[in-house]
């Protein structure tokens, strides 16, 4: 998932591009990436340079700003100027990504948001812990973005195994900073036990029941505790 920076004019376009392109880039090279556990800097540089190149092209080509974007930003109408060019910074967004292949997983994380990983103990008890914390810099309104000059240095990559004789990985939870406010406890860097309930639901419920219930949960429960927008991804096996 990719969360657009609040103050960046067209960050929603940046976020969409980052989420789509990162997924495609990583899916194409996943087998190779999973073998490069000692070359995480190289992986970070590869991903960031690829994404920044695409974002720069978009910034020069111009975004197809909607009527509501144009009204909000006092921009020319669609007929007067179909595409609006912008600075790279206007497309700022974070990235939170997990990919799995057979018995391995890889995580990518720049900026705020959290990646949680669930393990099963003796096939019975599930526990969720933080695999990647939010990276906010010193101040609450600072974070790092895919568009930042030092983005590669702040990209966190981890590679691991899903299988373990005692505590195999049984799920992941990815969240933007909206749900982070109530599912991640900052003083102790831990996740709410509710994350286990969410992953269990993902495991047990058919898709046609899970999706509307997750939507309702985000809208009617999680969003009540934050003024920010909310994104949540659950993976379970």
């Amino acid at each position, binding site marked *: 998932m990719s969360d657009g920076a609040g*103050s960046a004019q067209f960050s929603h376009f940046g976020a969409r591009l980052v989420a789509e392109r990162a997924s495609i880039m990583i899916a194409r090279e996943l087998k190779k990436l999973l073998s490069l556990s000692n070359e995480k800097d190289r992986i970070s540089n590869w991903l960031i340079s690829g994404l920044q190149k695409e974002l720069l092209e978009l910034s020069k080509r111009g975004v197809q700003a909607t009527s509501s974007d144009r009204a909000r930003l006092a921009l020319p109408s669609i007929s007067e100027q179909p595409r609006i060019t912008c600075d790279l910074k206007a497309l700022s967004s974070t990235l939170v990504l997990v990919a799995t292949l057979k018995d391995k997983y890889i995580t990518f994380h720049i900026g705020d948001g959290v990646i949680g990983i669930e393990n099963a103990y003796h096939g019975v008890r599930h526990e969720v812990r933080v695999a990647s914390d939010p990276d906010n810099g010193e101040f609450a309104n600072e974070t790092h973005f895919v568009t930042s000059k030092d983005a590669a240095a702040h990209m966190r990559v981890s590679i691991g195994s899903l299988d373990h004789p005692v505590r195999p990985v049984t799920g992941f939870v990815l969240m933007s*900073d909206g749900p982070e406010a109530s599912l991640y*406890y900052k003083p102790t860097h831990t996740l709410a036990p*509710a994350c286990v*309930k969410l992953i269990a639901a993902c495991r047990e419920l058919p898709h046609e029941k899970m999706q*509307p219930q997750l939507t309702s949960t985000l809208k009617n429960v999680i969003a009540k505790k934050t003024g920010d927008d909310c994104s949540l991804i659950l993976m379970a096996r």
Partner: protein
Amino acid sequence: MSSENLIELDDLLDNPTPRVPVSLCLDCSGSMSGQPIQELNEGVAAFYSAINNDEIARYSAEISIVTFGPVQLETDFQTLSTQSCPPVLKANGNTPMGEAVQLSLDTLERRKQEYQTNGVDYYQPWLVLMTDGSPYGGSISLLNEQVNRVARLVEDKKLTVFPIGIGDGANMEVLNRFSPGRSALKLQGLNFSDFFAWLSKSVSKVSQSTPGDAIKLDVEGIKGWAEL
């Protein structure tokens, strides 16, 4: 068909509110006696009241007040939900500005450490320095040290500073040294109330900012209280 929720409100965690630490470093020397100290007290009281009435700032803004001279920590950092009334300031003594700024900055650093130890998020701290005169009665070398310390923090984007002169006797040259990149401002007369009203709105804006937001000060609003 209504959807059930997967979890309920009781399942959610309560995180500490991110804090905005604001240090007021205020000249309460003998020359502030009479109307100036009265207006300053009223301005500070209005500041507290405005912050207290703001739903978000009330739990986010933490205010510390250091006065000089003599140098005193009148109030240590706390939110107005725990300390809603300001201290009553009295005018007395010299103007040991360096010592006062040192105490303000040391108190700020200590508070930041406490936030970090306790996992509390915070925004960039603010230092408001107000004087009606020139530094007097303190160490010149310490004053120079604190000027450099503030300038370094501002350049490293670790601090926002507002040096404000009160009246015609205010040494604007010294105040300007505390503020690289932005000139110190002089208050219009004794218009503390408008300044503190502007300050409370600015603090409220910060407490609602999100990652990536650049805080833009209300420059138009400054015209309401500063001589420009």
